[in-house]
């Protein structure tokens, strides 16, 4: 799927390389939803996310010559969006807390898999504290591993694992509440 992306839009990407404005806008239309989704999950603010996402596109067009096609264009672009979103989040003085190993023994809830409305999941993710939300998004949705997350957030590997567990538990609680609420 990822490599297919590259082949499908290669022509547009090449036109962007030559600074073709129409092609640039076309590429935006192809990728804005995914990129906006990444940014809004990290920042939890619609206007800020749109701004960061659009700036990331402009930056990508500027340095499109550095895109050598080793990964899919989407993955390359996403990296820029993630980095810029995190920079923006850090401007809000968000601290990614270190969690000590001792406190990290958290039992995982076991629940049956039920069909859940996507909007419910989105809202539940939005309600997570900044640190939990970012780690969970990067790991489960963006597909980063704990090494990458610890590097990008400047926290330890174990702290990344702990935050992921806590985030998942919190999410589970929220979804459970939601379920009860929707049944009532």
């Amino acid at each position, binding site marked *: 799927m990822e490599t297919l992306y590259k082949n499908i839009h290669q022509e547009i990407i090449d036109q962007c390389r030559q*600074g073709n*404005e129409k092609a*640039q*806008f076309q590429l*935006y*239309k192809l990728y*804005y*939803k*995914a990129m*906006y*989704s*990444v940014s*809004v*999950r990290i920042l939890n603010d*619609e*206007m800020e*996310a*749109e701004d960061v*996402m*659009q*700036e990331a*596109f*402009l930056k990508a*067009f*500027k340095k499109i010559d550095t895109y050598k096609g080793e990964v899919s264009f989407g993955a390359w672009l996403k990296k820029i969006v993630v980095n810029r979103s995190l920079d923006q989040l850090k401007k809000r003085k968000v601290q990614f807390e270190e969690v000590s190993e001792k406190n990290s023994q958290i039992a*995982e*809830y*076991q*629940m*049956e*898999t039920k069909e*859940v409305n*996507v909007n419910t*999941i*989105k809202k539940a993710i939005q309600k997570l504290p900044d640190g939990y939300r970012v780690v969970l998004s990067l790991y*489960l*949705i963006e597909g980063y591993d704990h090494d990458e997350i610890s590097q990008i957030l400047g926290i330890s590997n174990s702290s990344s694992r702990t935050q992921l567990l806590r985030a*998942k538990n919190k*999410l*589970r609680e929220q*979804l459970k509440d939601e379920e009860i609420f929707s049944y009532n």
Partner: protein
Amino acid sequence: MKEKDYIEEIILKNLEELNDNEPQDGHFERFEAKLKSQNKKKRITLNVVWKVAAAVIFVLLAVNQVAIYMSPEKLTTKIANAKNDISLASVSEEYEEVEIYYTNAIDAGLTQWNTLSNEGFISAEEQEMMDTELAEFETRFKDLQEDLAANPNDERVINAMLEYYQTKLGIINMIVNKLEEVKQQQKNTEHEIEI
């Protein structure tokens, strides 16, 4: 490990919808505006770069031109300064050549005079006459220099200068030639006496 993680599963299942968020209305227009201004900025900065480059080249050329324009004057003034004087050389190259010819010829005449003097052919009285004559030429030359400095391109001054050189050379040559003649005659008579 354990059974499939509930949270992981529902997220993976809904990945597509999770990545299907729509920004607020008007984001296309906002992006288009940003895109236009970025591309415009790029073009302007490129233009500015070219303009600056052109300006730099122009300034370099202008400085070069000025340097070229200044240099011959500098050179001639240097020559004049070397002589410690303003002279015909400062008027034009042709006059400089004329001046060099005359000064060389006069110098040659004077060395001839000096050799004659060294040979004891010239009396103290004659030497003194020559010295006063040369001193007179020197003051005349200084006057002409002042005139030339005041009216650098006045033809009358230039002609006066040329005349001065001609006269000086003429007189020196005449004296030296006369002395040579006398010297020759003396030699001949000495010869005759010997015989």
